[in-house]
């Protein structure tokens, strides 16, 4: 008998022993053992399942132990019937209690899995702790910037220089190509050119092909599952020939599976990097990875990299009077190191993770407190039941067990609902937050975390009322006196304060964040972002025909203006150094390229001089326009700088104009100096179209595109969309806050509801007397609501500075921000909103107490 077998049978037998009647145990166990033996000998499929079917089928009324409450020494001190009865009796409030807790859990589950997927980037690589990425540290004008791309020779040089430490190296270069198979062609935007050991170095999963051989041939290609399906449908992809960029044939030798978790490199296709001429040390464009076995070795290599760079770049450093360093970055750090430029990696934002974690925790707290509060409030309704039980001889331990048992049942039930809801709502959540969260219920951390959570909630929500209730003096309860203790209400009140605190915090954060977002969206950027289409210059054919392509739109009424650019506002701008001929100083400056229609298309005004002109041959590639900020930096007035010569990238340019400042990068950055060069480094077309004839204009453009570049699909986007993407993570955070603050308010209201219920019950007799003496319903509602004003005020006083601090640090991401003190009303509004919502909730509850017939409540002594 194998170990696994004994194990599962012993679990089943234990189950039988635990649940079935004693006198039947021997027989049942014997039958099951014999049955299992037969199954094993006959080797039937699903034998384990069949066995368990029999086991579970044995659990039926005729075999189960009796839940006999009065029997001494029986382990079933807990009678589920009572639980069900009391749940139904308290109908709505128990439903609210369970659903509220479940709702909180759903949010927490979703956030947990999201955070889990963010921090498990690249976890599936076998040697993930040994993989490092080479990062260059460039130093233009003292501002150190980390750059992800390096050049071809690094990998081999590192292997040569550190033979003992670096076991292997691989180079990967992201790119995009046009792929054709028969009549299907797609632009694959995420392909990787890599060394042939790419798949043995990393552990990207392969469903077809041998890890060590798939990329051996220069003309081999490995496709992702989804990409393979796109081209070949259900046919076997291995051995199929695809054409890349309409030039070279490649044979499919492998198919990748979906990655088990996210990876910093996302790609749908891998080909051998040897098809490229990688050039020398200065042709940076690929990423170099190395494998080093221990962290100590890695530290050693890191410490030697200064010498390494001197060895290979020493002459360049001396000649150019600058230096550059190299650094190894562990694979595990890649996802959150978002200060590294040009590394093609999907970066996460650690702040977002912290914020989400905090939000999750807050919701969890609220949900648990609520549950505790409502449970305690409800348990007082059963004081009489308990008193009767005690009088009839119920033992204290048994009473405690009964209450704990009920809490466990309810909690498990709520957890079940939460898991179901989470699965059901996951697509909606993913859609709304633009995430791709996958649930992995077997995650050990989750199980531990969930276990701890349930046990703690259980202890607070179950044990406390259990102990409290079972210690009541039965006689007093039956006589109808008050059952409460002062301490108890302080605990519960502070829980409510905490809930209000979280709600007020969430509401004010939501309001301020959305203010900032709308400020960012509405701020005048200094250029026109509406109705501008950006089209990638994605192939050589169109690049060679830029002028003709542009001309084809001249007579089109719906095309207002057309420019080809390298760096549109909101897009990527290179950073370089600018020098004036008379001084040796370097000035750091952003650079972009445009043609004669650049400023007109984007609606940027000229402050002095003129824009580029089409007919002046002397303008081409020799002239530049500075923005005001750059002129300021150089210490000129706009008029003085005209006709001055400046040098950028060894090109001498004549300044012919000064443009107004405009926010060419995101509003998170201060406005920086910018030079627009009249030149040919164009990456995109920017076309201003007639906004009211959008579809007609788009049709004109794509028709013309198909004429000039029939082989390549047109890739385009709108400028306002591309600018909105700059604030994607903030927009996400804003959505998260608004969604979860709604939930937190909802949950907090439930807590208030519970507390109000409790108070009304406690003061029932007092209220009855007040009514008899002439109090109106309104007065009674006011009386009951009064204590909540204090709670809300305390919460508000506590929440305001915390929210202020939090929002202030959040806003620090932005160079252009709203002022919090100018928006102080937000805090008042949040408090007021929470107050009003709470009052309505309380009102609903206390109204009943207020209009009830006083004789009902004072009749009994």
């Amino acid at each position: 008998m194998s170990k696994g077998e004994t194990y599962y049978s012993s679990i089943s037998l234990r189950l039988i022993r635990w649940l079935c009647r004693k006198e039947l145990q021997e027989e049942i166990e014997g039958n099951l053992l014999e049955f299992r033996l037969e199954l094993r000998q006959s080797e039937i499929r699903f034998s384990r399942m069949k066995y368990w079917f029999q086991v579970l089928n044995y659990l039926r009324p005729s075999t189960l132990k009796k839940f006999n409450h009065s029997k001494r020494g029986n382990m079933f001190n807990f009678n589920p019937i009572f639980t069900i009865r009391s749940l139904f009796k308290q109908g709505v409030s128990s439903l609210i209690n369970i659903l509220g807790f479940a709702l909180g859990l759903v949010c927490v589950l979703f956030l947990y899995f999201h955070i889990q997927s963010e921090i498990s980037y690249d976890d599936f690589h076998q040697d993930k702790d040994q993989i490092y990425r080479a990062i260059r540290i460039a130093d233009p004008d003292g501002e150190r910037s980390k750059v992800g791309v390096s050049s071809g020779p690094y990998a081999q040089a590192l292997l040569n220089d550190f033979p003992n430490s670096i076991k292997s190296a691989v180079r990967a270069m992201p790119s995009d190509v046009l792929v054709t198979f028969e009549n299907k062609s797609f632009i694959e935007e995420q392909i990787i050119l890599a060394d042939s050991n790419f798949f043995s170095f990393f552990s990207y999963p392969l469903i077809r092909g041998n890890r060590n051989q798939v990329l051996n041939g220069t003309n081999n290609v490995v496709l992702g599952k989804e990409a393979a399906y796109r081209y070949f449908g259900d046919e076997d992809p291995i051995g199929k020939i695809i054409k890349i960029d309409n030039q070279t044939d490649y044979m499919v030798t492998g198919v990748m599976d979906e990655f088990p978790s996210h990876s910093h490199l996302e790609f749908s296709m891998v080909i051998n990097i040897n098809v490229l001429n990688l050039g020398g040390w200065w042709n940076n464009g690929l990423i170099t990875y190395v494998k080093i076995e221990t962290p100590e070795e890695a530290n050693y290599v890191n410490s030697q990299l200064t010498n390494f760079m001197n060895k290979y770049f020493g002459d360049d450093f001396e000649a150019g009077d600058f230096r550059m360093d190299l650094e190894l970055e562990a694979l595990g750090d890649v996802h959150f190191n978002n200060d590294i430029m040009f590394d093609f990696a999907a970066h996460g934002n650690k702040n977002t993770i912290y914020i989400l974690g905090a939000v999750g925790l807050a919701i969890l707290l609220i949900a648990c407190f609520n549950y505790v509060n409502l449970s305690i409030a409800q348990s007082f309704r059963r004081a009489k039941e308990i008193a009767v039980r005690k009088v009839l001889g119920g033992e204290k331990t048994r009473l405690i067990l009964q209450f704990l048992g009920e809490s466990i049942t309810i909690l498990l039930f709520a957890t079940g609902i939460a898991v179901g809801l989470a699965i059901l709502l996951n697509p909606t959540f993913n859609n709304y937050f633009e995430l791709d969260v996958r649930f992995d219920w077997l995650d050990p951390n989750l199980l531990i975390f969930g276990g701890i959570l349930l046990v703690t909630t259980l202890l607070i929500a179950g044990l406390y009322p259990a102990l409290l209730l079972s210690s009541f003096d039965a006689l007093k309860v039956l006589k109808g006196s008050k059952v409460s203790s002062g301490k108890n209400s302080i605990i519960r009140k502070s829980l409510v304060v905490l809930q209000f605190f979280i709600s007020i915090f969430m509401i004010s954060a939501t309001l301020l964040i959305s203010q900032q977002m709308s400020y960012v969206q509405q701020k005048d950027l200094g250029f026109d972002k509406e109705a501008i289409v950006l089209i990638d210059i994605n192939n050589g054919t169109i690049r060679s025909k830029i002028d003709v392509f542009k001309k084809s739109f001249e007579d089109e009424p719906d095309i207002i203006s057309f420019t080809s650019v390298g760096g549109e506002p909101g897009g990527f701008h290179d950073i370089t150094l600018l020098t004036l001929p008379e001084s040796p100083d370097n000035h750091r400056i952003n650079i972009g390229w445009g043609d004669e229609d650049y400023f007109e298309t984007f609606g940027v005004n000229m402050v002095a001089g003129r824009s580029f002109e089409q007919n002046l041959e002397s303008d081409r590639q020799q002239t530049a326009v500075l923005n005001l900020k750059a002129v300021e930096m150089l210490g000129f007035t706009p008029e003085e700088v005209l006709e001055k010569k400046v040098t950028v990238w060894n090109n001498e340019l004549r300044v012919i104009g000064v443009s107004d400042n405009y926010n060419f990068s995101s509003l998170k950055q201060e406005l920086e100096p910018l030079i627009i060069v009249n030149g040919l480094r164009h990456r995109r077309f920017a076309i201003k179209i007639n906004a009211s004839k959008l579809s007609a204009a788009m049709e004109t453009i794509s028709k013309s595109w198909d004429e000039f570049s029939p082989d390549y699909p047109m890739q385009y986007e709108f400028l306002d969309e591309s600018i909105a993407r700059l604030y994607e993570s903030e927009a996400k955070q804003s959505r998260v806050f608004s969604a979860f603050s709604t939930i937190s308010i909802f949950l907090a209201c439930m807590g208030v509801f519970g507390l109000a219920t409790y108070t009304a019950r406690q003061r029932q007799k007092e209220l009855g007397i007040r009514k008899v003496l002439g109090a109106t319903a309104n007065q009674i509602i006011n009386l009951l609501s009064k204590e909540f004003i204090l709670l809300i005020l305390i919460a508000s006083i506590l929440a305001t500075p915390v929210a202020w601090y939090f929002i202030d640090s959040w806003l620090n991401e932005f160079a252009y921000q709203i002022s919090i003190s100018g928006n102080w009303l937000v805090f008042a509004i949040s408090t007021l909103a929470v107050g009003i919502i709470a009052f309505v909730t309380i009102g609903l509850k206390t109204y009943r107490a207020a209009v009830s017939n006083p004789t009902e409540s004072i009749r009994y002594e």
Partner: protein
Amino acid sequence: MKGTNLGEFEELVLLIVLILQKEAYVLKIREEVLDQIGRSVAMGALHSTLSRLEKKGFLESVMEGATQERGGRRKRIYELTALGKTVLKDANQQRQMLWNQVPDYALKFIYV
């Protein structure tokens, strides 16, 4: 007690207990029901039928026959009581009586 009428399945089980004699315990009865009648019944379900029959007084049981395969655990061997046998016989007679009244031709034309 629900009375002493005999259900269809109960009748089958009683017959099989009779057939199996000293081997009439849940596991074997289940196999017999599966092999001869073609009905797959869980042991738990069978157990509740058997204990119902015991309650009605048609069956008796003794614990005996521990074997190696059963991990040394005894079987509950069922045996028909005198009442059980009478009831079974009565049921059979009733059936026979009814069968005898069925006209021959009534069964001849079966349109399937």
